[in-house]
């Protein structure tokens, strides 16, 4: 009788441990999918360590997953790709002449167009952080950054109206540029 009770206790203990391991594996498999990137393990045991595993699994499964758009253009070896962007720049208030205002606004617009080309070709890094205290959003921060090298971009058209300069730029990408 004593042995039977002991056996039952052992079975129940092993059953409990098996449930916990399943929850952990669920979390590990879901995390890389939400990032939509190959899992690097950068955030492992840092951000989610203090949180409940079951809670993470639920939140992650509810988040919308970004799917690649079928109509998104892909650079192929056979044909080049033309990218067109429009950059905007503003003239400063304290300029000595309209010509100077135009020149400065155009410089800013060209830089904006370069940034847009870099964003389209290389992509943007986005970091977000929300601080919530007593169930209220105290601070919401979104940081984006781009780093790229752009060459052979051409200015197609420049317009200047009411202090705003718009520069239309285009760049032709070929497969050989990335080899």
């Amino acid at each position: 009788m004593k042995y039977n009770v002991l056996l039952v206790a052992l079975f129940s203990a092993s059953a409990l441990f098996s449930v916990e391991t399943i929850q952990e594996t669920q979390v590990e498999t879901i995390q890389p999918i939400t990032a939509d990137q190959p899992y690097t393990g950068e955030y492992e045991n840092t951000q989610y360590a203090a949180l409940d595993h079951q809670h993470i699994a639920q939140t992650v499964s509810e988040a919308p997953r970004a799917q690649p758009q079928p109509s998104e253009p892909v650079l192929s070896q056979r044909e080049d790709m033309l990218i067109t962007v429009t950059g905007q720049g503003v003239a400063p208030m304290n300029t000595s002449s309209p010509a100077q205002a135009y020149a400065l606004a155009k410089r800013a617009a060209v830089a904006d167009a370069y940034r847009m080309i870099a964003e389209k070709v290389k992509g943007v890094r986005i970091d977000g952080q929300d601080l919530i205290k007593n169930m209220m959003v105290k601070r919401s921060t979104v940081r984006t950054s781009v780093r790229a090298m752009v060459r052979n971009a051409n200015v197609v058209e420049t317009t200047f109206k009411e202090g705003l300069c718009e520069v239309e730029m285009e760049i032709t990408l070929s497969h050989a540029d990335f080899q």
Partner: protein
Amino acid sequence: MRSRDGNHSFSRRLSVVLLFSLALPLSASEYLISYRYVIKDALLYNESLTISQAMQKCKGSPYRELILENDASKDLKKIINQNSETFINYLHKLGLSVEHTEATVNAQNKSTTTLTLKTQCFKVDFNDNFARISPLK
């Protein structure tokens, strides 16, 4: 060449002068140029173009030359100032590094974009009517 009094000072001086006169033009037509401008919140914040003569001979072969008008001057800074717009467009074509950071804190946005041409060696040929500028790679 040995002088009558037997010392070598004349020939030494001559060889030194010759050496200097031949070595100077080798690096005289090479310049180091860098360009950078910063845009903050869609406004031009800072722009700098630095030009200096190379003190050492640069390596590489010239490519993608630019021809600027010149009135018999050998001052590159002056020539570039006279044709600044053409030269800046040319630098854009050569390629600039783009660095952009943007922060939105509680729906208030701030952005900084920096375009940079890292210091590069350019070969410059001065002629009577034009100056030929080409980067070395």
